[in-house]
């Protein structure tokens, strides 16, 4: 297995620490991306260092390059010590010798009001022509976001599909007996703690607007579903009924949740209107019904049930009604996630004693195993349906991984100090 280590998000003012980083894992580099495996068709691109980025708080070019490589569709070529920006007239011969197909160069300039002007140009190296321009004005704290937007712009220009790097993920860490809910950039960097608790936190789920999270917290000595406003930190229990309350999933309009409640006995699916009112029961079979996931158009609800004797994934109308079975092979299929484009169903299947991420083409029913690990959990799709994030145990530690839908390119979002779990990929930031 080929391992490429990319260290990203380095602060220029901490350059001295680079020497130390060879000796010890630096505390400020919270995540390290490891790309494992090589895809068949990766577009070779050069992202030149940005003019002015040595004096800026973020190394834009390396953030952009890491994003593009994690997508599995690009191979970043070393730019060397070239001095280029968006106004340059590049000399094509060195890039053509490297077989580069695209070149990106740009600049980052501090404005009088303290904000930063970010500009970039994308060239087609083969044709020797400029292809597109990028411009963004952001605060210092938003430079990483700007780099992710730039990666989305390049992705869109070169693949024809929108990128999804300017999005966020949430996840949970356990360090000692502290549980923390984190919000991070899609590359796992720039994390902010939204909640810390001495009791477990599971199942964070982004609202469609990206401003709220629903999750399950055990702080009341039982599972209770909360909705948490990220900007203000305001949170409220939206399902604290007798018994267990869990597995929140947002409806497409953000006005209600599907969740699992045990108030009637067993684990049953309910629809909870966030403006209040009695939860409405959706499932009627005995036993376990849990892990609801709405189809992107909101018409159907995928969920897990043991009604047939073993946990399998089923689909029913979102308002409740007859359920049809979706998974047929194996005796343990859980944690359904539907891609935003509606084409794919990701889930975890037990094969032998191993829990592995699988992908089903919903139109044909064809299933592919995406991993060879043994404790995969909780997949969720990137907003552009091209990547999955999931939790697994990698080299003995709970870790988060991203994978392409063909399973060929995996990147590890490896945090420091503690186990990382329960990822959920949020919408692209406006």
């Amino acid at each position, binding site marked *: 297995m080929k391992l490429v280590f990319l260290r990203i998000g380095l602060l220029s003012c901490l350059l001295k620490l680079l020497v130390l980083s060879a000796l010890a894992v630096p505390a400020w580099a919270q995540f390290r991306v490891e790309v494992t495996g090589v895809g068949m068709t990766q577009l070779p691109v050069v992202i030149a260092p940005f003019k002015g980025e040595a004096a800026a*708080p973020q190394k834009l070019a390396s953030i952009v390059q890491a994003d593009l490589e994690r997508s599995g569709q690009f191979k970043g070529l070393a730019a060397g010590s070239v001095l280029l920006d968006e106004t340059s007239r590049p000399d094509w011969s060195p890039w053509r010798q490297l077989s580069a197909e695209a070149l990106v160069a740009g600049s980052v300039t501090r404005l009088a009001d303290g904000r930063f002007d970010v500009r970039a140009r994308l060239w087609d190296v083969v044709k020797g022509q400029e292809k597109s321009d990028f411009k963004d004005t952001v605060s210092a*704290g938003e430079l990483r976001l700007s780099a992710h937007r730039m990666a989305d712009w390049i992705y869109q220009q070169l693949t024809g599909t929108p990128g999804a790097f300017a999005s966020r993920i949430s996840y949970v860490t356990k360090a000692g007996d502290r549980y923390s809910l984190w919000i991070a950039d899609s590359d796992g960097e720039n994390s902010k703690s939204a*909640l810390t608790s001495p009791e477990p936190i599971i199942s964070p789920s982004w609202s469609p607007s990206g401003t709220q999270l629903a999750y399950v917290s055990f702080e009341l000595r039982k599972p209770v579903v909360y909705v948490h406003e990220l900007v203000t930190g305001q949170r409220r229990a939206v399902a604290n009924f007798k018994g*267990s309350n869990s597995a929140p999933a947002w409806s497409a309009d953000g006005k209600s949740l599907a969740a699992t409640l045990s108030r009637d006995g067993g684990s049953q699916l309910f629809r909870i209107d966030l403006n209040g009112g009695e939860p409405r029961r959706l499932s009627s079979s005995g036993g376990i019904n849990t892990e609801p996931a709405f189809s992107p158009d909101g018409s159907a609800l995928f969920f*897990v049930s043991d009604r047939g004797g073993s946990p399998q994934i089923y689909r029913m109308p979102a308002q409740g009604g007859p359920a049809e079975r979706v998974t047929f092979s194996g005796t343990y299929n*859980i944690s359904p996630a539907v891609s935003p484009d509606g084409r794919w169903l990701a889930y975890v299947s037990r094969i032998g004693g191993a829990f592995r991420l699988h992908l089903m083409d919903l139109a044909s029913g064809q299933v592919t195993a995406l991993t060879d690990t043994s404790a995969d959990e909780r997949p969720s799709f990137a907003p552009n349906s091209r990547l999955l994030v999931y939790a697994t145990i990698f080299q003995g530690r709970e870790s988060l991984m991203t994978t392409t839908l063909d399973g060929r390119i995996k990147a590890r979002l490896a945090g420091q100090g503690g186990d990382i*779990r329960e990822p959920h990929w949020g919408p692209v930031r406006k």
Partner: protein
Amino acid sequence: MTKKFLASLLFVALLAGCASGVKLDDVPVEDKSATSSGVSTQGIGNDQNGAQTGVSGVVVDKSGSGIGPVGVAHVVYFDYDSFVVRAEARPVIENHARFLQANKQRKANLEGHTDERGGREYNLALGQKRAESVRQALSLLGVSDSQLEAVSYGKEKPVAQGSAEADLAKNRRVEIRY
């Protein structure tokens, strides 16, 4: 609320320091109303650079626990993939049933747990099944349903950390908490 919570903590501490002959029959120990009194919110919606991070941190403090019947096990174990209360657990459940019938004002939380294998939410549902098995056993012995709440921790709170079968067996359990 905080005062009441501290007072009940103090009371529990005093009890713990006493000889075991203390009569518990009319002890008004706070149970699950001792909640997360320390939830606090701090606004870090904007970072020092003025960026809208859109995230404000919240800190939750630890909650308390009460005391049930003295000298009685409070854990019931289960076989793999099973929700059936074993015969050996019978005396434990009967003891708790007697205690709850003698103390109608007391309430018990039946906390279901699973081993580490499989997904978190599905394990939560499995632990719920175990907790409800114990609830049914207590109900059959005459305990009022209003004194019982079956909840689940799924695989979130293992007592044994290893992955050997002996560890997994210790984790497949229902804890009876007051």
